[in-house]
């Protein structure tokens, strides 16, 4: 059992959730309520990481984060380290490839709040922020939590993109998924089996929580 890799994966997933939580709430709400001309395009872009092959997506991220890219340069200038093959770079990549998981369920959660109820909140004197806090989030939170749970689980399991952007540096970018791959390559079937079983357990738990929450959304609003 590669505890270092598991701990790294958990840290990566945790940071991804921390950064994506506000994005999930604000973008989910924005896409749920606002109508604008390029909305379809924005929604398609958000969904793109879901359909792109991970290696392709990873390749573009690698190019975008690389030493000769504007982003890579900026990072180097600000922090004095390179973005690719670093934990920070991995977090950034993780934030991007998790956008569909973080936004879509939250968007559905906010969409389930009836327009009239939001209008009632405004007519009760609530500012948009207060309405978000007092009315919309209490009704849409299962969607947001589902988004975060999916993000967490997906980060633990992502392989292709992580390998492309992070390489496989132990303690820096070697996640549990990559570690499993390494064990299999090294004929350590028992190690691979244990780590796989841990991931299966985490995934099952995640799905159970997600289903339980989505059933709650239905009940609250009926």
């Amino acid at each position: 059992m590669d505890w270092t890799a598991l701990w790294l994966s958990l840290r990566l997933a945790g940071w991804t959730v921390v950064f994506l939580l506000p994005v999930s709430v604000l973008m989910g709400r924005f896409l749920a309520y606002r109508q604008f001309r390029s909305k379809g395009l924005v929604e398609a872009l958000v969904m793109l990481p879901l359909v792109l092959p991970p290696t392709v997506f990873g390749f573009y991220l690698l190019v975008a984060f690389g030493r000769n890219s504007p982003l890579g340069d900026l990072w180097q200038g600000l922090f004095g380290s390179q973005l690719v093959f670093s934990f920070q770079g991995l977090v950034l990549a993780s934030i991007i490839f998790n956008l569909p998981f973080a936004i879509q369920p939250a968007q559905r959660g906010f969409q389930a709040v009836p327009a009239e109820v939001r209008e009632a909140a405004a007519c009760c004197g609530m500012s948009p922020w207060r309405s978000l806090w007092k009315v919309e989030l209490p009704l849409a939170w299962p969607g947001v939590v589902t988004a975060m749970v999916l993000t967490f689980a997906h980060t633990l399991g992502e392989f292709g993109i992580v390998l492309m952007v992070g390489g496989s540096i132990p303690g820096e970018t070697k996640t549990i998924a990559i570690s499993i791959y390494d064990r299999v390559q090294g004929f350590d079937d028992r190690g691979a089996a244990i780590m796989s079983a841990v991931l299966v357990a985490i995934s099952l738990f995640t799905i159970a929580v997600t289903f339980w929450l989505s059933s709650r959304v239905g009940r609250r609003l009926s």
Partner: protein
Amino acid sequence: MALEVMARAAGPIPLDAAFRVEPGELLALVGHSGSGKTTLLRTIAGLWRPEVGRVRVNGHIWLDSAAGVNLPPHRRRVGLVFQNYALFPHMTALQNVMAAMDAPDRAEAARILDLVNLHDLSDRKPAQLSGGQQQRVAVARALARRPQALLLDEPFSAVDRATREKLYAEIIALRAHLAMPVVLVTHDVNEAQMLADRMVVIEKGRVVRAGTTAEVMAAPEALRAMGIREVAAMLPATVAAHLPDGLSRLDAATGPLFLPAVEGAVGTRVRVRIMAQDVILSRARPEGLSAQNILRGRITRILPGTGPGVMVHVAVGDHEILARITRRAADQLALQPGDTVHAILKSLSVARDHVARAREWAPDAPDAPPAAG
């Protein structure tokens, strides 16, 4: 102190309307669905912005497109009761009411729930309340906002008939506490006539006719927009006796009226809505007729309609009742203004929800809150 509204828009519902509501007055916006009446209400609340518009309440300008003023809904002191109530499903009745307060106050919220007869249910969530109870919470929540204008959007359309009658009575009773202008949007002319002081008839976004309910009922253009079948007169009366045979005797200036059991103790003042199409006219006082109500009066005017009918206005005492009869019948009887006629009304033709308690409203009632703010 009044509420003044003007709105013009090209679409999606063409709108070109203006009206004014006095403090303490209940104005009904009446029209068919798609006439723009709800859009007008949403304009007042700030939920919709017309291309050109002006909303002024109590000296505060909420919307003035010419001056570029458009306050968002949460900055307008408005109480809106939605058609489906739009209660916050995750809050109890009490919390719903408190959510509309600037400084949430449990005791005050409980007092307002008391006002709508809902005190014992204050810990229930909306899903555990009946339609009528939800409507009461919605009204309480709107009042908790201490609105400068109270807006009711078809508030009785989602409940059954029996509940509706009760809610009418409650709204009428509640009005003793309301000092602000009230706007009721409804497609139901009965509702408008029973509850409102004045009516504005809207058709295709335009004001067809505005005035007291009696004035509107006498205006042919309004009748066209509302539907001729809806024409009716309101007759004040007092409950005189509940008879063992299931009828109630009401005393009116026109003589006794016998109607199916009316709610309210003996002595209660009510208003009875008499549909023009249910009234028969006779020159001589008829004998041997099953109809229980024969009112003697004098014809004040006869208005021709577009179809085969005419509308005969009959003054009975201080009041006027309307009879819609065919032109042929009017010719046969040679009816002329000034003639004495007998109006005949079948007891059972007065529906239960066409009798409402008369409003005892004093504009400067001493216990004017919670709405005075």
